[in-house]
Every structure is written in structure tokens, then in C-alpha cells.
């Protein structure tokens, strides 16, 4: 059992207390935590799924860009934050599990710990009111 780094544990605590959907991924892009508001976006409960591989979570809500073109997983802000280790922001559409299309703004920030340790990334989701 490998314990999470303290910066990741603290990020989870912050996410647990905030009302906007938040995802936390490890340096491989695997989803290690999502908070309760994010469960609505993802359509799963964290207690049921635990962590999730990048290939699974990044396509589960069928993201499409503003032109209607399907997004590849590497285009997701979280994956950009992981691969390039700088912040990324994007607006795109997802199809929720309730069948409704939602437009989201997503801002992802790499998590750089003390002594320049790269620990993953955190993303904040914001639903755009139509």
C-alpha cells in the first residue's frame, strides 16, 4: 500500500469542502479522487469506483469541443496539465449520465510539491449557464 503524498491528501481535503466539482489525478493521469459535486458530472460515486485509469475517466462523459468534434483524452485540460506540467483551461461539452448535454469550463493545475516534486494535477469544473 502506497500512501498518498501530503500535498495530495490536503488537496482532497480542500475538494471535500468545496461545492464545485473537483478531480485529482496522479502523475500518470489516473483519477485518484473526485469530490461529491464531481460525482454528478461523472455519474459514479467515489466510494464505489475508487481510483480510475486515465483511459476510463477521460472518455466516460463523451466530451466534444465547441465545434462538436469528439475530444481525445490528451486534449483534456487535466491531461495537458499532466503531460506539459503547466495550467490548462478549456470549454467543452459533455453528455451527462442523465442524457443531457452540459457545457463545462475546466481549469487544471499541476500539483508541484515541496522540492519540485511533481505529484499530479487538480481540475476545477464549472458548468456554463446557458
Amino acid at each position, binding site marked *: *500500500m502506497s*500512501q*498518498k503524498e501530503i500535498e495530495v*491528501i*490536503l488537496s482532497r481535503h480542500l475538494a471535500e469542502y468545496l461545492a464545485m466539482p473537483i478531480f485529482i489525478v496522479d502523475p500518470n493521469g489516473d483519477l485518484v479522487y473526485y469530490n461529491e459535486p464531481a460525482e454528478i458530472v461523472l455519474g459514479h460515486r467515489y466510494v464505489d469506483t475508487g481510483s480510475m485509469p486515465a483511459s476510463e475517466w477521460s472518455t466516460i462523459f463523451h466530451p466534444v469541443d465547441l465545434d462538436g468534434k469528439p475530444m481525445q483524452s490528451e486534449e483534456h485540460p487535466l491531461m495537458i496539465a499532466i503531460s506539459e506540467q503547466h495550467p490548462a483551461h478549456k470549454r467543452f461539452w459533455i453528455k451527462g449520465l442523465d442524457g443531457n448535454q452540459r457545457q463545462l469550463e475546466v481549469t487544471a493545475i499541476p500539483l508541484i*510539491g515541496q522540492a519540485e516534486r511533481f505529484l499530479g494535477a487538480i481540475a476545477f469544473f464549472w458548468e456554463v449557464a446557458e
Partner: protein
Amino acid sequence: MKVTLWGTRGSIASPGPDTLRYGGNTTCVSVQGSDGTLLVLDAGTGIRNLSQTLSPVLQRVHILLTHLHMDHIEGLPFFSPLNNPGVSVTIFGPASTTLSLKARLMRYLSPPLFPVSVRELLSDLRFYELPSVTIEIGEFSVTSQLVMHYNPTLGYRIQGPNATLTFLPDHNPALGVESFPTSKDWTSGYDLAEGADLLIHDAQYTDEEYQARIGFGHSSMSNAFRFAELAGVKQFVPFHHDPTHSDDMLDRTFEDVCEVMAPQFDVTPAKERMIFEL
């Protein structure tokens, strides 16, 4: 390894008739290896008494600081080997994004806060910043990891030839957790403490006091017991006693907590000059 407690108190030294048995000096623990390796864990006021027991022919010492709060560094300038030109002293501590460990310590070890500055010390003094790594020091394998406390703070796991010591003097793994403990992989300090032969851990507050001090970075006694149980340690040493707690009060409180928690491991509340042979 021989583990000696030179300072068991948290926050501020509290000498006096009410603290004679548990001790009034702030955090300092020495770890002596069979090969002569000497580790000093934190440099609170207890380090001065350690100084007085050291061999005059000591050549090398390693000071492992968990963090730079005053109760963990205030004894540093009174550690006599620092002023001995024949001694090599290495000070380890948490990294910072802005200032080196030396620069941060110099804020205290320089006028006007202290009359002698670091550059005036006569020992061969080196500083080494630790993120989450394992390093070899003599016969010991020392793993450091950042843990839950106020300001970046390290915990240490010291693996010797025969036993493992975990040192988490300032640690609140229950912070932000609705019901502690949660899963092992989301618990601060778990990897450091897992299966340790001896866990020296923050147990500063009674459960009642803790309710008014959440966010101060320290554990309640009950949560410290729960952490020790989660980690599966063999012996637990409640440590970093609150300066307001008298010997009699600590006797009563630990007796009560042990009765309620019914631990399946040995519990030995920290007392100054207590020695553990592991």
C-alpha cells in the same frame, strides 16, 4: 539502536515542580547506533542535556529537524558540537520553495535574536534539505516524508539493523477527516509508521482540548492511539506533551485513555531521559 528522550514537551519549555517526571524540555531525541552513528531528532531545549553526555572525541553527528518551529530548534545554539572544530555536523530539514534551510535557520541564529551567527560556528557544518527520500546514515536507513502539521513538516522512519523507529512529534493525521481513521493510503504518516517497533507520536491534547484547537497541527490523545492502531505499531510513545499539563494530570489522562481505547500494543508515555533499547 538506543533511543533516548531528552525533551518531550511541546510548544514551549515548561520546567517546574509540576513537570519533573514527564519533563519540561522541548523536543529532542537521540538515536545511537551500535556502529557509533549518532542521530539527533529535533533540537528543542532538550538538546542541551544531550550535549553534556557526548564523548569529547565525537567526530560526526547528524541532526534531523522535522520542521523549524521554535520548540524544535531553540536548543540548537546550545548544542556544543556545533562549536567544536573537530566535529562534522550535518543538519537535515524540510525544503522550502523560497529560502534554503541554512537561510531559514539563520533568521534565528543571528543577531538580534541570537548573538552568534551560523558562520561563526566552528564545526564543519553542512545543511541538507529533505523532500520525500530515503538516505543512508551509518547503519541507519532514514526515510523522510512530509506530514500533516502547520507549515511544511517532515516525519522520519529510521530503520536500524534490528528495529524501526518512527518519529512524528508534530502531526495531526485527523485534520479535515470526518471520522478518523480513514483508509491507510489517505492517512498522513502511514507509510512512515507502518509496522514500526517504536512510534513516537504527537498526543498533545486531551479530546476536550482538541475540539478548541483543531487546525493547530497537533493530535488529540485518542486520535494518536487510533493512528498507532491503524499503522500496526508494536510500541507507542505519546509525545509532545502540552505545556499546561502537569505530571499528575498526564498520569490520569493516559490511564483514562488507555482504559477507553484498550490498545493492542504497548503504550509508554514519553518521559524525559527515558531510554528504549531496540
